[in-house]
């Protein structure tokens, strides 16, 4: 750590010199601060020094080609056991995020909308969500919801993403269509009210109407304090979510950061020009 601390300072300074942090929130320090994050899976390094600061209320878009490390970053942030962090630090609300269990990260307000939501046969949505909501309440020192309070909450939140009541009575994601699974992710987000959400290709596999429902659902849930990382290949989700900052990830590093117009430029020109830009750097 000591050996690298000088590098950290330099990187931090470099980041703060960019005038892009025009977040809507009024928070003081950063909500999430990632410094020189290196991570690998099965011994293969995927993240090679990520630096990223997200303030309260900001929505950051993360773009990049397949294999650039976008999903790895989201998995590392939520503590997926298959990934090993080899270097760097992540602080969330001033706490060492990497030292927390996945469930405690969730309790602290981090939510991942999975790229591939998992089917869990035999576990009903009701039991699953009740366990999740009540464990979060326990963590916050609140009493568990009664059965009727809980079912009322389910009904209210379901309406936000227009999720069919029948789906809520089924096993978690079992037999759900691609669109229903993504809607179910946003429904769970509505139930858990996270302060920081990661949407990992939430738009993939969605038709135009489903995309609108999911994106509008997310916007309804958003408060001035809600921050998010939105991983996507396409502009159309960003049209709804209106990110404050757009990052391009290449080879495990953030190589370009810009405003919303950067996403539009990528939509038109692809990534090759950015690759060339990177290669021509000294």
């Amino acid at each position, binding site marked *: 750590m000591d050996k690298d601390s000088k590098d950290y300072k330099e990187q931090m300074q470099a980041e703060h010199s960019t005038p892009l942090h025009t977040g809507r929130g009024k928070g003081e320090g950063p909500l999430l601060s990632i410094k020189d994050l290196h991570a690998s899976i099965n011994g293969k390094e995927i993240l090679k020094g990520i630096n990223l600061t997200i303030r309260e209320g900001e929505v950051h878009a993360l773009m990049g080609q397949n294999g650039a490390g976008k999903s790895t970053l989201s998995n590392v942030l*939520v*503590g*997926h*056991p298959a990934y090993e962090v080899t270097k760097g630090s992540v602080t969330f609300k001033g706490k060492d995020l990497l030292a927390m*269990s*996945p*469930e405690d*990260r*969730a*309790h602290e307000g981090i*939510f*991942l909308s*999975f790229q591939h*939501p*998992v*089917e*869990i*046969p*035999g*576990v009903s949505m009701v*039991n*699953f*969500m009740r*366990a*999740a909501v009540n*464990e*979060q309440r326990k*963590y916050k020192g609140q009493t568990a919801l009664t059965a009727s309070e809980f079912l009322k909450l389910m009904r209210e939140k379901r309406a936000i993403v227009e999720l069919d009541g029948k789906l809520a009575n089924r*096993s*978690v994601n079992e037999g759900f269509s691609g669109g229903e699974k993504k809607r179910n992710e946003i429904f*769970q987000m509505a139930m*858990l009210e996270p302060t920081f959400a990661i949407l990992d290709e939430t738009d993939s596999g969605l038709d135009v109407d489903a995309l609108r429902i999911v994106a509008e659902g997310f916007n309804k849930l958003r408060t001035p304090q809600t921050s998010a990382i939105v991983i996507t290949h396409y502009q159309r989700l960003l049209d709804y979510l209106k990110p404050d900052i757009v990052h391009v990830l290449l080879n495990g590093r953030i190589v370009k950061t810009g405003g919303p117009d950067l996403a539009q430029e990528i939509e038109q020109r692809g990534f090759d020009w950015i690759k060339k830009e990177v290669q021509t750097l000294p």
Partner: protein
Amino acid sequence: MNSNHNKSGLSTPLHYREGQGGGSATQYIELFSQCEAMICKHSAEVLNSPRAKAVADFQRLGFPSRKAEMYKYTDVNKLFAPDYGLNLNRLSIPVNPYDAFRCDVPNMSTSLYFVINDTFYKKEEQRLLPEGVMFCSLKEAAEQHPELVSRYYGKQADTGKDAVVALNTMLAQDGVFFYVPKGVVVEKPIQLVNILRADVNFMVNRRVLIILEEGAQARLLMCDHAMDKVDFLATQVIEAYVGAGATLDLYELEETTTATHRFSHLYVQQEADSNVQLGGITLHNGLTRNTTHVTLAGQGAHISLSGMAIADKRQHVDNHTVIDHQVSDCTSNELFKYVLDDNATGAFAGKVLVREGAQHTSSEQTNRNLCVTRDARMYTQPQLEIYADDVKCSHGATVGQLDESALFYMRQRGISEKEARLLLMFAFVGEVIDTIRLDALRDRLHLLVEKRFRGEMGKCQGCTMCK
């Protein structure tokens, strides 16, 4: 017979001396030859007459070694070797099960009966059963209705094929008799609680005979408990005859102790268009070997056989099933699931035999198992023998771990790893519980299974055993 170490005066010790040749079978033969008169005196003629053949068979067979395919995963010899006491004098046991034991199934109105060791506990409930139905001591039934009992007793349980069955036939003195005459429907489920009770290491040999005549219907739940912290060795042979068009639900639930060894043989013979649902659940045990042998003898018979085991520590559960499709147009459906934790061992062998001419047989067998730790072991062996050409038979067996991606998904939602594991294990066995056709029992089992996974024994209200 001496009873030096016998505190209660109830038991007859076996004469087992280590280092002497002959293996553990010898002590039982010696016991029988010394105590035959006493055994017979406290039983009935119908039960006594097959003993001679049983002894001869037992002597010839001896206990199977682990080389025997049938007992590959359960070391019978070793389990029968220790010195257990027996209550061959059948002295009455000073306990009132109705006071001591109030484990019940909430919201399930049952006719409740008890068997302590092998003794049927009388209560004035008999008249609540429909006209002609008998649920009573097997010994009494054999004395009062010898022609009826002898027509069925020992006809399926072949002493020539299995040493444990031979041993049970040789020593069993009593048990339960259940008879439902032609066309009678027993609406109320019957719950039979078997309690093992002794002050010394103890052996029990129990016998159950179930007869459902043509068109009869009945549901029976048998719960096994062990009341004391001594070592128990319990053998049980159940023979069920299900007449044409009759319907039988038979559920067995074991909640004993880690010092209990259970050997149960269940034989079912089904006539045409009969419908049988068997459910065997091992919730808590020491060592359990269940052998189930179903004979589909009449066209259009249907058997649904499901089983479930939850085992941890060094618990051992071995289910051996045979479904014999003897005639055409029968269906069988078999589902067994195990959850093995710690150093537990599970075994499942499922044989489906489709005999020549048993056309249009439909048979499905599934065995799925979860090994929660690296040290848990599961042995599974599906076996299909088909001698007919127009049949539909399938089988599948898996042994696996909990789905890691599902675990992580739940943890990301804030569910602790422990809770997430419980939810997954609970979901896994839920499929078996849902095959049970008694709503109240199904609900009760969901609760008991949850408690079991949470490391609590099935505690219930007002029961001395659970305190």
